[in-house]
């Protein structure tokens, strides 16, 4: 599906520009967005490097293990394929905590740490495991208690009540996460049943 969407975006862009007689716009868009991507990567390298380092300290100090053991009972039903006591639980907990608190800059490095733990359990390094899909279902729909960025932007735009959106955001976010977890559960079950029949 990713392959299809990727090709579709490029092809649609070229065709629309060609039909409108300004195919040169494709080259401009390409150059500009390639530059923008590198700038984006540079803008987050610093914070990524810092949090990966701090996460390693937390791990060496045993903090990740404590978190993992404490919250394992809650997470186990969502990630049945991760062995009991595996460090992946600790990284997943840290990432979800950072997400819920709206700490985007810390959430991504901690999430990448969790992904590398999950990858160590992966028999086929190019293909996503069900645990990875569940983890991303939670992350892409992200339950955020305080949408800090939006509140700040609303205040900057002169809002009389910047935090008015907290309730509606939490409700809409819960709908998104509920949908993500339900569909993920159904997809996971279908795959497991298929594997059971074959094996």
């Amino acid at each position, binding site marked *: 599906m990713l392959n299809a969407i990727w090709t579709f*975006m490029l092809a649609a862009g070229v065709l629309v520009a060609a039909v409108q007689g300004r195919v040169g716009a494709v080259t401009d868009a390409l150059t500009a967005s390639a530059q923008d991507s590198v700038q984006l990567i540079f803008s987050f390298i610093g914070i990524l490097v810092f949090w990966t380092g701090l996460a390693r300290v937390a791990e060496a100090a045993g903090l990740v293990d404590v978190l993992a053991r404490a919250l394992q009972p809650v997470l186990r039903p969502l990630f049945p394929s991760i062995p009991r006591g595996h460090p992946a639980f600790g990284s997943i907990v840290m990432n979800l905590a950072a997400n819920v608190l709206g700490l985007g800059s810390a959430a991504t490095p901690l999430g*990448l740490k969790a992904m590398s733990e999950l990858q160590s359990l992966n028999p086929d390094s190019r293909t996503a495991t069900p645990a990875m899909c569940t983890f991303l279902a939670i992350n*892409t729909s992200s339950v955020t208690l305080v*949408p800090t960025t*939006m509140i700040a932007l609303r205040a900057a735009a002169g809002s009389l009540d910047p935090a008015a*959106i907290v309730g509606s955001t939490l409700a809409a976010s819960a709908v998104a996460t509920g*949908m*993500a977890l339900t569909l993920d559960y159904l997809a996971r079950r279908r795959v497991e049943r298929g594997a059971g029949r074959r094996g």
Partner: protein
Amino acid sequence: MRGGGGEPVFIEFLQLISVWAIPAMVLGIPAYGLWRGVKVYEVFVEGAEEGLRLAFRITPFLLGILVALGVFRDTGAMHLLLSGFTPLTSWLGVPPEVLPMLLIRPLSGGASLGLATEIMKTHGPDSFVGLLASTIQGSTDTTLYVLTVYFGSVGVTRVRWALPVGLAADVAGFFGAVYFCYRLFG
């Protein structure tokens, strides 16, 4: 406080947490590590080096997606696709101003943030569409970006059902935002 359900103390408490969480971790993690006898600085540098490798590993994945998205958006193809959806969504009660966010929110966090800011500038942050746009922006993460960065960091290219699930959640979140904003602010 409008629509907050009369819980300003709760909200203030949450905001306090989100302001203090990072400073608390920056204080607590190294201090606890030092107390446990960890060579904190050396371990930090070791982990940070892995972060640098990670950034380079993500680069091709992110660049591939962002360039395709740039071509799709800047040539006007995205706008054309959106105008095809207008009759259906206006029938569902979606204000035309926020409709582009349905397509843009899962694809590009920066672009949809720009759109939300523009809507607030034009209609005011406390107008119905202003509140709706901020709710849509805050209620989900950028699916395509998260998938690219997370899977890219470990070199996974077959993402299986993660993409359709993420996109379906975005659509659900969008219509959830429309529904709850009508209930709270409409």
